């Protein structure tokens, strides 16, 4: 099995995009592309499909030119039949393939929920582990430029709710590559959720093929006063908030769980034990969202650590507006995180 010999990386060695260290740097999109390229080279069972993946823009660069190298029998375009093609991916996985199915936007995954939720997520359990479904569903959350309500939805909380799915949300280029390799190597369906603005980021990415274990978060910034658990694009926002707060003498710890399911509960609980205060910065709606889950876990397993009620930073419970002024009002960011931290230490 080509995936069992993978080198496992536990912690990004040089996370600090700003300091310009002399290391090999790739953009988030190029890191994803390199992961796909290496996975395709590593295992003939891997194939990549999705609507528009072979177009000149190459899925924001993340599939750019792959079909030229690996052929259109392994890297190919699809019609917009989201549910049908998802089922076709599942069926091919039953017959021994390892599909990566890319959806430009999570909004379109809603059309494939029958195959994701009723089928892919249940096949292992329902048939007592006899039929693994190694399937990676890549998708990228949109934001800005009037993306509006149907091209910007962050639906990770829906997927986290479903037993049998793993949910991954990489923040850095390093994690994008390592986690995508792990997702492809996994014998279960993995929802791999990117965020469009993270594509602008560059970071250290080793050239070799490497995997990052699921269920291991990363402490992006150590601190002693307040724990911020931040998801995806909320990580850079939280780090900026941390810099501002540092000027005022508040020392925050920023945790990037990297995978929402499985979740590194231990890292979160240990941090809250140390700080006694929690701000949960999620990239989805508040009600019934992933932020509620994290607060519930801390309440159940670390209630005695809490010195103050936790505060959530999440999307307001409304669809995303399209106009840029309303959009600005809609998305929480640095300012909201700073306010939340101040509220929790008050």
């Amino acid at each position: 099995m080509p995936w069992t010999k993978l080198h496992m990386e536990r912690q990004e060695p040089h996370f600090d995009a700003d300091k310009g260290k002399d290391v090999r740097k790739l953009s988030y999109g190029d890191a994803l592309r390199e992961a796909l390229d290496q996975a395709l080279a590593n295992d003939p069972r891997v194939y990549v499909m999705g609507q528009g993946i072979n177009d000149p823009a190459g899925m924001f660069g993340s599939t750019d030119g792959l079909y030229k190298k690996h052929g259109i029998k392994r890297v190919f375009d699809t019609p917009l039949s989201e549910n049908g093609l998802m089922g076709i991916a599942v069926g091919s996985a039953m017959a021994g393939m390892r599909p990566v199915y890319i959806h430009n936007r999570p909004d379109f995954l809603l059309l494939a929920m029958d195959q994701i939720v009723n089928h892919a997520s249940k096949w292992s359990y329902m048939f007592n582990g006899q039929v693994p479904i190694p399937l990676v569903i890549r998708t990228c959350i949109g934001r800005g430029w009037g993306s509006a309500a149907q091209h910007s939805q962050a639906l990770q909380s829906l997927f986290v709710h479903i037993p049998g799915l793993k949910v991954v949300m990489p923040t850095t280029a390093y994690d994008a590559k390592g986690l995508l390799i792990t997702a492809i190597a996994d014998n279960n369906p993995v929802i791999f959720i990117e965020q469009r603005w993270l594509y602008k980021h560059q970071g250290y990415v080793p050239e070799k093929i490497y995997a990052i274990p699921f269920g291991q978060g990363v402490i992006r910034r150590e601190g002693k006063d307040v724990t911020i658990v931040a998801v995806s694009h909320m990580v850079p926002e939280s780090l900026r908030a941390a810099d501002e707060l540092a000027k005022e003498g508040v020392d925050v710890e920023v945790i990037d769980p990297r995978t929402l399911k499985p979740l590194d509960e231990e890292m979160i609980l240990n941090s809250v034990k140390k700080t006694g205060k929690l701000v949960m910065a999620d990239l989805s709606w508040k009600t019934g969202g992933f932020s509620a889950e994290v607060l519930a876990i801390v309440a159940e397993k670390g209630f005695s650590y809490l010195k103050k009620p936790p505060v959530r930073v999440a999307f307001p419970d409304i669809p995303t507006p399209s106009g840029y002024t309303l959009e600005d009002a809609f998305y929480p960011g640095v300012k909201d995180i700073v306010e939340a931290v101040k509220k929790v230490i008050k």
Partner: protein
Amino acid sequence: MRLSKEKLFKLLISLARIRKTQLKIEKHYHEDQMKTPVHLCLGEEAVSVGVSAHLKTSDMIFSNHRGHGHYLAKGGDLKALFAELFCKETGCAKGRGGSMHLIDTSVGHYGSSAIVAGSIPHAVGAAMAFVMQKKKNVAVSFFGDAASEEGVLQESMNWAKLHNLPVIFVCENNKYSVCSPIQVRQAEMPIATRALGFDIPAKTVDGMDIFKVYAAAEAAVTHARRGKGPYFLEFNVQRWRAHAGAGDPQAKLYRNPEDILDEKTMRDPLASLEKYLIKQKISSREKLDAIYQKIDEEVEEAFKFGQDSPLPKNEELEKYLFAK
């Protein structure tokens, strides 16, 4: 059609095994030991048997909630079927699947779906995998008339045709979706004509005649196996029982008059084959009875095996959520 004696007996035995298994389940269902919603395929056996007669063990089939016939005709283990109905650890899905979720990977059955039309794209995906792996196998999707109302069938046909995949769409049209007759669900035209819209060869065939099913399936499987692409078969069949459970106590309340089954309207693929074998002097009443007795014993043994098998352990409730 001229079939060898050996082939004729194979068809007969397969039909009778499914028939007798279904009748055995029905007979004991009221005892409440098989705590799973059964959808009997009585009357529809010829489709499973006639299609599977052309399949290799390594060919894959994809099935639905009314799937006992598909499973058995493809060679699925009879004991594991009964054990699954009794929710036992020895069941084909170790008591995690039940009647609607049968599986036997050793004969190319990778799990049936109870979401109507849910397994149709799986067959197309398996066919795509066969092409990628340069295998000469075919995939078969069994589904009912109601599945033709789902968008995913059209999506699947489009992709299958676009890539010329070795998949056979087999629609068992029994004219009822639970209690809703087809007339209140679809405009009047053969379901097979939809495949023609995708330029997929399609036929509507009498599914109550094992010879007609056999011949149509032979053409379809040969077509797919030779790399000529997908094929669509619609078989008109009779559902002898209610949507689920034993008998059909409300038949008169929901069926159209012409679909109420009596001696005149009811057609029986097994009885027809028997008649043919006797008339052609290929077999005799005594010989057939001897075959049936052997099947009865096999069914009885499988039933007992299921009944006597251990239940799954509650400590293993969470096992199998993720594949290793």
